[in-house]
Structure formats: C-alpha cells, structure tokens
C-alpha cells in the first residue's frame, strides 16, 4: 500500500520506538501535523521551537533514547539552531525534523525559506535534505542509527512540503549500509594491555570521567574499575552523575569551578585516566601547566577528541562499554600485583584526604540573607535520590554542580559544552515527559529563567509537575562575578534592574508560585513545592553578590585557584 511522505515519516518514528515528540506546527509541516492526529505518537506543543529541541534533548539525556523535535521551515527551523548546537556540543542523540518549502521553490527566497542544511552543517553529526519520497524511509533509518551510535549527536532531516505529500510504497529498511560510517567499537587489545600496565605502575593516579560515561550508561562498570584500583575520581560537568559524589573516592568536579582537591590531585598526579572526556578548556585551564607530571591515557570513542587539546601518552579509541570491563579484568588478572598497587597508592589517597580537609567545599552561612548554596543543599536533602535536576547556565549551574550530591546516573541535565541559558526549563519539561512519576527540578537564576519562561504554559497544559527553583539575585551573576574580579567591579549591563514578581508570573500561567526571603523559610518552601501538584515556581531572594568559588581565572593553571573572595 502506498503512503504519503508525512505518513512514512511518522511510521518510521513509531518503528524506531519514538513515543513522544516535541514541536511546533507551521505551513510546511502541516501535513505531518495532520497525520499526527492519527498516529499513536504523543506530541508536546512547546511555545518556542528552541524549547522543543531542548525538551527533546533532555528527553534523550534522561532516557537514553533518541529525542525527536519537529519545526516548520524558515523561522521555525532557525529557532532550533541553539537547541541543536547545545545537543551537538554535549553529544546528545537527537533527530530534528524541519519542514522545508516545496523542492521547486528551494533557493528562490520563498516565504519562510532558510537553508537549514547549510545552517546546521557545523552543528549536526549529519544532516539530510530529502528530495525524493522514495529515499525518506532509508534516510530516517540512517538518521536514527547515526544519532545514537559511536559518539552520539543530533541529525537533522530537512523535509520539503511536496515530499511530505508525495506517495510511495512504504518499506522500512532492516539494516543500515553506510560505507563511510563505521564507528569504532572494540578497542585495540595491545593499547588496553599497555593501559593496564600503566595503571598498575602509577602511584598517583586520577580517574577523570566525562559525559561519555553517562552516555554509555557505564556507571556500574566505572564503579567496579575505580574500586578495583582504588584511584580517586574527578568528573566533568557532563560526567558528574555517573559517579556517586558521596563515594569516598569521589573528588567532585575539576576545572574552573572544580574543587580544590580535584584540581590539586590532577596537578600532582602521575597518571591521568581520561574516560569519555574531551579536555575542554574549562577543565584544563592553562594547557602548559595542566597535569604536568602525569602520563595521560585517553579513552574515547571519537578519535578527533584525542590529542586535540592536550598531549596524550596512550590513546585508546573505543566505546567505554567495551573498554571498561576489559580494563577492569586486565588490572585484576594478577591479584598480587593489584594488591601491591593499591597499597602503594595509599599515601596518595591520604594526601587527597588532607587536601579535602584543608579546603572542603564551603560557603559562609548567614542568618540575614539566603545563600544560594544553602538552597541547593537543602534541595538535595528534601528530594528523592532519583530526582532529576536540570539547570540553566551561570552561577546557579556551578553551585548545583558543586553542592548537589548526585548519586544516580542521568539525574543531572545541564548544557555543558555550549552553555545555553534558557536550557533548563524546557529540559526539565522534556525530562518530566520521559518520567512523569519522578521528581524533576529546574534550578535556575533570574536571568536564564527569563530566556524560555514561556514554557510554563507547556508545563501547565500537559500537567508536567516540574518544580522550578529561581535563585534570584537580580543579576546576571556569573558575568557580574567576572566583572567584580577582573573588571574592577564595573557592572556593565549585568544588573537586572526590573524586579520580576515570579510568584505572579507562575500564577498568570496557572502554576503555583512560592517565595522565600528568609533563611528559615527555605526548607518550608521546598517542602511545600514538592507536595504541591503541578508545576511550581520557588523564588528565593538570595544574597546578591555571592561568588562561585573556587575559581581558576581564565588562562591560569588549575593549581592557581581563587579560594575566597
């Protein structure tokens, strides 16, 4: 039986196991939306295409499935760009469907036309312009395969309106044939052998874990590996929830706003074992003084990540699913040797405990004003272990990374690479859509929140009970902090002078608004919010000029931290 392009698209999505899509209708996707009414796929109508992409992105981050978003051509499609770039930088598997003007009009500056293939080329893992309905099923199959395999990433399918209307016999291909795409899966055994040798010989090892561990669901294997070799662990922002922060070997995050002890450990280590991390500049600080005494083993599925920013002594190209179990097995082969290594690294672990005692993560608690860090600690105390925390970008994001003790994988949803303000609210929405029964919290600042606050409408409409924490300091806090420290306190355009009544804003959308202005109200507001059905905004009036510390100034080495204001 023949099907139209739009029917084929929806049927392919269903066969790929897609149950929820996020999007916004428009002229060139009206056929898809018409057929959507007859499809079992649930559609969530966001209030902005950027938010639809962030929601689909977060849906993927928490569920491990491929997220799907739909937007119309022209402005609808260009609105997705920030969302796609966010997913690309954090390697999130997504398929974005953009409508396109009919093929005869492409290139004619038609109404609502934009060259999405050109625009998204540098921010997608791959993209397709579908020119013939006969190619559509194959392209969708390939798009999902490319999005989720190897180093995952977003794939865009630009689908002209006439192709959606054309018909053909539908057949979904069973296999994918891409001769130019063969993601490396199994690591070279000789490299693994060398890695095991280096690990057993190290006396000051540090395991440095990135988003790859989250994406590959390797938390359990990671724990086994780390406990076998008893090496201290530091994570990036993206790797954070994949290793429990409460574990004695955890040192929290490293880098610009990393812990004192993680940065000291990296600087003094003799072996850095990088697992699915890419040595981002926010992680390394000044390259010349990064881990100066360490040999570096870099395990990554993407060969382009290796030796991109730092010298690497032993590259291991492979999936963590393959590498971690094999590496653990290799280091455990000679139990006597492993025991010797663990004993010989005891002074190193003692040293780290000493650093932890010297400069633990802390902030000055006051009676008069609410400290943002306190809100985050209190939130951790009052939420479930499997609560999903989304954040926007800025000070509140770093405080969350520093003070929220994540213990379960895929519970921290944040824009790490691109650093997209306005990500958190739609991301929380997408996470809640994936797990309607779990607690989902968006931690935000007053600046970021206003970048996608229209999504309150979506939350209320779909009864997605996201709880929103706004740490309101009436500042664009992170930029203000830089201005304070490096620009002589000249607060150029960072003061959000118009105070917003966030409680009323919540109420305007039919959500609940709560506010705390005193320290003693914090716990009660959080408790009340968690008990209230439906979306809730919790506005906390926090101390205005609090800084995120420690801080490694841009261009400085990791050991040159500013520890106190």
């Amino acid at each position, binding site marked *: 039986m023949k099907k139209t392009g739009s029917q084929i698209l929806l049927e392919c999505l269903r066969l790929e196991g897609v149950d929820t899509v996020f999007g916004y209708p428009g002229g060139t996707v009206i056929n898809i939306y018409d057929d959507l009414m007859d499809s079992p796929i649930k559609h969530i109508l966001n209030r902005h295409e950027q938010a639809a992409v962030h929601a689909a992105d977060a849906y993927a981050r928490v569920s491990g499935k491929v997220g799907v978003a739909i937007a119309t051509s022209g402005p609808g499609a260009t609105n997705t760009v920030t969302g796609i770039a966010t997913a690309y930088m954090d390697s999130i598997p997504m398929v974005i469907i953009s409508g396109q003007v009919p093929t005869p009009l492409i290139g004619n500056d038609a109404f609502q036309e934009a060259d999405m293939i050109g625009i998204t080329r540098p921010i997608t*893992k791959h993209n397709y312009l579908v020119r013939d309905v006969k190619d559509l099923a194959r392209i969708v199959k390939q798009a999902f395969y490319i999005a989720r395999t190897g180093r995952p990433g977003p794939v865009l399918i630009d689908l002209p309106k006439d192709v959606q209307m054309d018909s053909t016999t539908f057949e979904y291909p069973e296999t994918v044939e*891409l001769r*130019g795409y063969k993601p490396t899966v199994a690591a070279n055994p000789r490299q693994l052998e060398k890695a095991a040798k280096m690990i057993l010989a190290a006396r000051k090892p540090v395991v440095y874990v990135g988003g790859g561990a989250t994406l590959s669901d390797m938390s359990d294997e990671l724990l086994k590996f780390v406990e076998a070799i008893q090496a201290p662990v530091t994570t990036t922002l993206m790797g954070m929830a994949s290793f429990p922060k409460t574990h004695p070997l955890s040192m929290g995050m490293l880098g610009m706003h990393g812990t004192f002890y993680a940065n000291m450990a990296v600087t003094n280590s003799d072996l850095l074992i990088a697992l699915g991390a890419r040595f981002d500049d926010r992680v390394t600080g000044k390259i010349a003084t990064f881990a100066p005494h360490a040999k570096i083993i870099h395990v990554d599925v993407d060969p382009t990540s290796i*030796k991109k920013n730092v010298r690497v002594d032993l590259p291991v190209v492979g999936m963590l699913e393959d590498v971690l179990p094999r590496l653990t097995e290799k280091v455990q082969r000679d139990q006597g040797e492993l025991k010797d290594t663990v004993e010989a690294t005891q002074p190193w672990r003692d040293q780290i405990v000493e650093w932890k005692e010297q400069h633990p993560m802390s902030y000055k608690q006051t009676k008069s004003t609410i400290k943002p860090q306190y809100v985050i600690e209190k939130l951790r105390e009052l939420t479930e272990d499997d609560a999903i925390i989304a954040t926007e970008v800025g000070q509140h994001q770093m405080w969350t990374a520093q003070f929220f003790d994540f213990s379960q994988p895929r519970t921290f949803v944040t824009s790490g690479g691109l650093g997209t303000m306005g990500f958190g609210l739609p991301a929380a929405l997408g996470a809640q859509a994936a797990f309607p029964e779990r607690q989902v919290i968006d931690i935000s600042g007053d600046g970021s929140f206003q970048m996608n606050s229209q999504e309150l409408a979506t939350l209320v409409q779909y009864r997605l009970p996201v709880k929103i924490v706004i740490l309101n300091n009436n500042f664009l806090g992170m930029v203000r902090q830089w201005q304070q420290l490096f620009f002589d306190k000249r607060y150029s355009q960072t003061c959000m002078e118009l105070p917003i009544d966030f409680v009323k804003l919540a109420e305007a959308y039919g959500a609940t608004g709560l506010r705390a202005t005193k320290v003693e109200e914090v716990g009660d507001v959080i408790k009340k919010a968690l008990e209230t059905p439906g979306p809730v905004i919790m506005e906390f009036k926090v101390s205005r000029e609090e800084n995120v510390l420690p801080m490694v100034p841009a261009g400085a080495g990791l050991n040159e931290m500013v520890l106190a204001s």
Partner: protein
Amino acid sequence: MKHTISVLVENEFGVLPRVSGLFSGRGFNIDSLSVAPTLDESISRMTIVTTGDDRILEQITKQLNKLIDVIKVIDFTDQDFVEREMLMVKVTAEAETRAEVLRIADIFRANVVDVTPKSYSLEATGTPQKINALIELLRPLGLKEVVRSGPIVLGRGAKGWKNSE
C-alpha cells in the same frame, strides 16, 4: 607545511561544503581542489592541497574521516606518490613571438589547442613545478589567461586505494 590529501566521498550533492567547511572553519585555505567520479561512479575522489600546521592538519584529517559521506582519507604527506597537474594557457602570439611560443611548447611537450592570429592556447600536463616553469617562460611573451586544474595524485606501487593506508 604543504599537504596533499585524497578524499574519497559519496558522489552526492552537499558533500563538498562538508569537506571544505572543515578547512574554512579553522581558517585554513585550500590551495587547490579537484573532484571527479572514480571507477565506481558512486564514489568521487577529491584531491586537496593545503598548507598549514601539522597538528591542525592531523585534526582536520580526523574530522574528515568522521564525516558520514567520507569513505576514505589518504594523506600523502609522508608517502611516495605521483603528482600531475594540467595547465591551459592563452599566450599572446604576434608575428615576432609566434615561433618562440611553439618552441617553448615543444620543450614542455605542451599541445596547441586553439590558434588565432594573435594568440595560442596551450595545454600542458606535469608536476606543479613543471607547470610553474612553463608559465614563467611564457610570461614575458604575454599571458592572457592561465587555468590550472590543481594537482591530482596517485600513490606509487601496485595497490589501489582500497587496500592502501
């Protein structure tokens, strides 16, 4: 440093900007580029000559390999290869220089492909060095137009690209 790279790609629309974007995005100029289908019509072969820092070039080569439409990348930098470029040149040929143009063409084994009372158009093939030398000899006679194909290269030895590394 100068690098010559062959890139075997899917013969489809939209592949060229993916490849060239990796160079332009890093501020690398492509000195020359030539593309045409291979024995297998579904595969095109690009020959790219570029100049730049080795480390950045290694990164570009890896990124090229990562492109879905790229089937194989061969960096000829440290390899033994044969290189040929084609030149078409329109030279002023008035009465007093007509014989000289033909003499130079003869030395370089260039062919005359078009003649007018005032000009000769020549076609020559050779290494880029040979092409440069020919252009320099013709320059004093008056060059009207020079078109170069950019070099294409082939690895030495019996093996084809499918088995080469």
